[in-house]
């Protein structure tokens, strides 16, 4: 199994060496990787090229078909769909990024602490993680928006907490394996502090797996946040956001104008598919190396 993948990935490596920034993730992984880069660039520099105010309402141009002025047409309020997609990519991607950053930080911390101290500390952390794990992320996020009012902030924090167990579990199991290796006792017997060993030796040696799983969580968080915006608990109008655009475009579908909802959904699907594929490949890669 491992050897066949190794052969499959080794061949294109020889043919296209210049494209290989990340070796060992296969051709599909490469496509996913570059798609993610493209989407990230869209969010990073895309809005600089947007000439039209994405929030400018002009009801005369409602559902205006694609044309040189409106490359992808206009929505129900006559707003330019393309500029809304480009500007909306920032909210659509920054939300999950914040979720994943917080969840990864918290999860890594919990996982490493659990492994280093072991005993009752480990047992407590595992129980808490299991308890949080029992709640679906989206449910926690809806609960948070119900308590603190709709908006991206409450939903992001709630999702970050909901995703922490994913990362914490993976970090814990990988770090546990690492901690039981003899070189860790060698460091211990040199009188190193547990924090130094965890941060300087265990963490770097499990970081590949952490990054890979954080990538997977990014895709899931993007869907959750888009879904929240879709049902109206996340990003609030008139701010442009992919999830919110799918929701806003719903009425258009009924009127035979599916452009807005379709375009926004397509971007969500492409991004999530690319991110998940990349994450999958990264997990495989770090497992092959371990």
């Amino acid at each position, binding site marked *: 199994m491992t050897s066949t993948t190794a052969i499959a990935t080794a061949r294109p490596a020889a043919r296209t060496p210049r494209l290989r920034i990340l070796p060992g993730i296969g051709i599909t992984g490469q496509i996913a990787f570059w798609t993610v880069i493209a989407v990230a660039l869209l969010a990073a520099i895309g809005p600089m090229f947007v000439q039209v105010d994405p929030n400018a309402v002009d009801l005369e141009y409602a559902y205006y078909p694609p044309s040189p002025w409106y490359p992808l047409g206009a929505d129900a309020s006559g707003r330019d769909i393309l500029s809304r997609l480009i500007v909306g990519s920032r909210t659509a991607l920054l939300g999950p990024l914040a979720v994943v950053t917080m969840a990864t930080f918290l999860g890594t911390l919990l996982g490493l602490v659990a492994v280093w101290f072991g005993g009752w500390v480990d047992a407590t952390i595992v129980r808490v993680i299991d308890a949080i794990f029992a709640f679906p992320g989206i449910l926690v996020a809806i609960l948070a928006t119900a308590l603190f009012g709709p908006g991206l902030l409450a939903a992001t924090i709630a999702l970050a907490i909901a995703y922490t167990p994913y990362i914490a579990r993976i970090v814990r199991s990988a770090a546990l394996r690492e901690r039981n*290796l003899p*070189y860790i006792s060698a460091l211990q017997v040199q*009188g190193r502090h547990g924090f*130094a060993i965890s941060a300087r030796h265990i963490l770097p*040696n499990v970081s590949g797996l952490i990054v890979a799983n954080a990538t997977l969580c990014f895709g899931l968080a993007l869907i959750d946040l888009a879904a929240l915006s879709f049902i109206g608990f996340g990003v609030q109008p008139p701010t442009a956001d992919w999830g919110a655009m799918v929701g806003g475009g719903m009425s258009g579908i009924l009127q035979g104008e599916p452009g807005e909802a379709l375009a926004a959904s397509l971007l969500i699907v492409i991004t999530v598919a690319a991110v998940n594929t990349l994450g999958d490949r990264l997990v495989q890669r770090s497992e092959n190396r371990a």
Partner: protein
Amino acid sequence: MTALLTVEDLTVDLKVGDEMRTVLKQVSFSVGEGQTVGLVGESGSGKSMTVRAVSRLLPEGAAVTGSVRFGDRDVLDLRGDALRRYRASDVAMVFQDARAHTNPVRRIGDFLTEAMILNGKTGRRQAEATAVELLEAVGVHDAERRMRQYPHELSGGLLQRVMIAASVAARPRLILADEPTTALDVTTQAEVMAILKRMQQEYGMAMLFITHDLELAGSICDETVVLYAGEVVEQQRSAQLHRDPLHPYTAALVQARPDIHRRSERLLSVPGHPTTAYEAPAGCAFAPRCRFAQDRCRAEKPALEALDAAGLSRCLRADELRGALLAPVEAAADPVPATGLAAGPADEEATR
């Protein structure tokens, strides 16, 4: 000579599944300042566990009684910062498998300098210079280049030298060497041993040296402690160990080593198989394998007793057997003929 390390009545039980298994039974010995003490025994005799108790590396759930004293401190009571200080500056450990005991993704230089830099006493440059000096002191040529290499780029012997360099870096007062040369080939073994011994003398460190090589223990240790089934069975000056063993087990080990001046069809071995502490019989633990064993050996537990000034022996017949332990094996009545001493068709059948 003042005692630097004193181990007294050290008993260790390890948790295996749901039961506690004894691996060490009331082990006592001491290591004086600058002294080298050898800890000899077969696999499972408890020698590694003894060192792990001294370095406080016993696995979780281990039950330890007795005492380990370093100077005036009780090692088993050390916690937090005190434990870290003890490990960082008082004892150092050299492991059997250097490769497994180094982080494979860190360069040799990082491995050597990390502790110095983290302790905050030296800057990176100073630490690197010190590390290069240390590497040169343990006979690593081209030290500057080695500093930038990863553990997998170094041979076993070279890596073990790096380990020795790392362990003496903090100028500890005691080195715990857990079979430091077992994983190396014979020529490298001799070199590494010489380096370890030289570093020890240069820095005036004491050493607790674990080995299953009686010969090696005899040549580098001042005092040798022989462990069998988690108990000390003999302790005496290493120089005497080969000529005048005090315990039948030691005698059997001495006789088992090949002698270049003697021709023999088959190398002698100690009959039977090694016993661990928890499965040891009621009487003397060595009785089932002992060619001098009598009925009372199987019934009565011998105590570790002093034999005049020579040393200690845990044998009921130690006094009467003194000097006769090395009698040729062929002449003695063999209690268990089919377990390795006598070659025959039955034996070959058994090993097949």
